[in-house]
């Protein structure tokens, strides 16, 4: 059996594939943050809480209303998107002229509030969420067995990421959005309703976070603190990819998945910190990120 650094080739290939699978989940999770961070320049610390709301709503829908995984995949992002839009319109909007730190403080405070409310109702141990019937089982690929659900996550992530990238970079609506965030007064002069676009964009970013939450519900612990574990990693991904770049955060998500996957094989103790090591190195060499534009 051929070995690379003491690991059989088949096992290594399996870990790389798994890394890509997990990377696509990171890409989806970072997408919403990249859209808000990159487009609106808002440090949206509540991204993790919105992700958690998506997962908890999926559970609530199933527990109290008998709505399974499939309807909640549409409904949860929709509801969280609306919540995001209300949040932006009522609270966040007032901070645009001020230092970025105010936005961070507000969204951080909102996170604590949202997590606290869910925790007071549901505790922290989590809720059981069964795998949807259609996606159970696994496929034997020869060198590894891949659960069908993971393949599904990859499919959804790639479709949503590519669609979002295409929308923002290649359509006229996306172009107007980019113009609105780069130069609001000039764009407004063209008759484009910039404030409304910003609200919709924030809502869209929130909906993306919630979609990632629904996807995570069958495979991760569904509990009020689930977002706080991931939020820092997600920020790191967006920073490494480059702040203005949607494609950058998608590519970085995938890259990070593979890097983390390989670390888990060779030195698993470092697998939680390797993303920050990469971030430090990237920022030293290219401060605007791998794909970022110089500001």
């Amino acid at each position: 059996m051929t070995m690379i650094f003491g690991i059989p080739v088949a096992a290594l290939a399996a870990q790389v594939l798994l890394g890509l699978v997990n990377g696509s989940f990171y890409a989806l999770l970072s997408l919403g943050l990249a859209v808000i961070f990159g487009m609106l320049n808002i440090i949206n610390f509540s991204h993790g809480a919105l992700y958690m709301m998506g997962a908890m709503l999926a559970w609530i829908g199933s527990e109290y209303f008998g709505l399974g995984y499939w309807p909640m995949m549409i409904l949860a992002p929709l509801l969280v998107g609306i919540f995001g839009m209300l949040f932006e319109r009522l609270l966040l909007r007032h901070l645009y002229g001020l230092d970025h730190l105010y936005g961070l403080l507000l969204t951080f405070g909102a996170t604590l509030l949202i997590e606290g409310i869910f925790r007071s109702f549901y505790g922290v141990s989590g809720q059981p969420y069964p795998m949807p019937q259609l996606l159970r089982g696994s496929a034997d690929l020869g060198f590894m067995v891949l659960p069908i659900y993971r393949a599904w996550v990859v499919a959804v992530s790639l479709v949503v990421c590519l669609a979002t990238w295409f929308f923002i970079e290649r359509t006229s609506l996306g172009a107007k959005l980019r113009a609105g965030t780069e130069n609001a007064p000039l764009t407004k002069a063209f008759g484009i309703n910039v404030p409304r676009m910003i609200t919709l964009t924030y809502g869209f970013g929130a909906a993306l976070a919630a979609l990632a939450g629904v996807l995570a519900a069958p495979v991760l612990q569904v509990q009020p603190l689930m977002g706080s574990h991931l939020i820092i990693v997600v920020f790191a991904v967006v920073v490494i990819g480059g702040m203005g770049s949607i494609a950058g955060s998608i590519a970085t998500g995938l890259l990070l998945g593979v890097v983390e996957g390989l670390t888990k094989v060779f030195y698993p103790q470092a697998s939680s910190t390797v993303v920050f090591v990469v971030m430090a190195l990237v920022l030293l060499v290219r401060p605007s990120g791998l794909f970022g534009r110089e500001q």
Partner: protein
Amino acid sequence: MKAKAFLLGILASGLVGGAQAQKLSDNAVRIGFITDMSGVYADLDGAGGATAIQMAIDDFKAKNPGWTIELFTADHQNKADIASAKAREWFDQKNIDLLVGGTNSATSLAMKTVAAEKKKPFISIGAGTSALTNEECTPYTVHYAYDTYALATATGGAAVRAGYKTWFFLTADYAFGKALESDTTAVVLASGGKVLGDVKVPLNASDFSSFMLQAQASGAQILGLANAGGDTINSIKAANEFGVTKTMKLAGLLMTIIDINSLGLPLTQGMYLTEAWNWNQSDDARAWAQRWAQRTSEKAKKPSYLHAADYSAVTQYLLAVKAAGTDEGDAVMAQLKKTRINDMFAKNGYIRVDGRMVHDMLLEQVKTPQESKEPWDYVKVVEVVPGDKAFRPLSDSKCPLVKR
């Protein structure tokens, strides 16, 4: 007038009652309870533990009217510095007589030092580390409900005897996880088993898929989960997803019915776990669990063994204060170490010289959904491990209090 005042005075002192016969500091017993009220372990102990302690106080006062007993509670947020600062503040400013420690080993290790300095009893309920009665023991520490040594002995030993001889460990990469892995490894090897490998995972890792592949590749018969809380839950979800449960048995080295409730029976059925107490184990346990649920906000819940231990420990403390006639630290500790504990939590329990409360542990297996007859009926008892076999023998102890 003088005679009337004098007679009234005698009448009044007679009414004050039995408490005057005790020499209590400030004429009151003050108990402080510091635990994780909001973090990952909040459901295992937390506010439910405070409820259990209040029940113990109320039940004692019902039989002993005239006593003044106060309870203070605080959230240490899983931070050792907050725990020790709060403990110190309470000892100095509120004159507490007993400190009760909830979940998280690091906080218990910090609090026991403060209690020993103040010469007041410290009862650790929720912490796992067996070091509390080993190299870190003090004359004022009591480790009440369980420890990592007992969990390892019961679960590890039983699994090997059941035929699961080759092990692979998934270990949380910090002191508690490593201690649990090394204690279990020692038991496995001593019982004639083998450890084929391990992987150390950072605390709070969300995704265990990669580690599941490694576990499968090892070819071991059983996967030992040397972690707790959210890590255990995520490991079990991943194990089911990747089909690991089809070829390997899972052993949750620190698991409670709260975790099983979060996962559901389909994912956990057949797993081995060790608990100090189960609400279904006897009529008094069931009756107490019912009373506890009535006092919490969720009537349908059932208590974990930490909640039951909170109640039992404080009850035994109050009985010891009554028997000793004082709440002075050394006298109460001496009384506690003389007591035989027989209540709804433990039968034939006793507190050793090193502070270890020795009692029988329950080796359990998770039921299948068909076997479960009512909500929270999740486990069946496979074996009762006698206390003297479960906990570290005094002959192996590094505690300086143990005479050689």
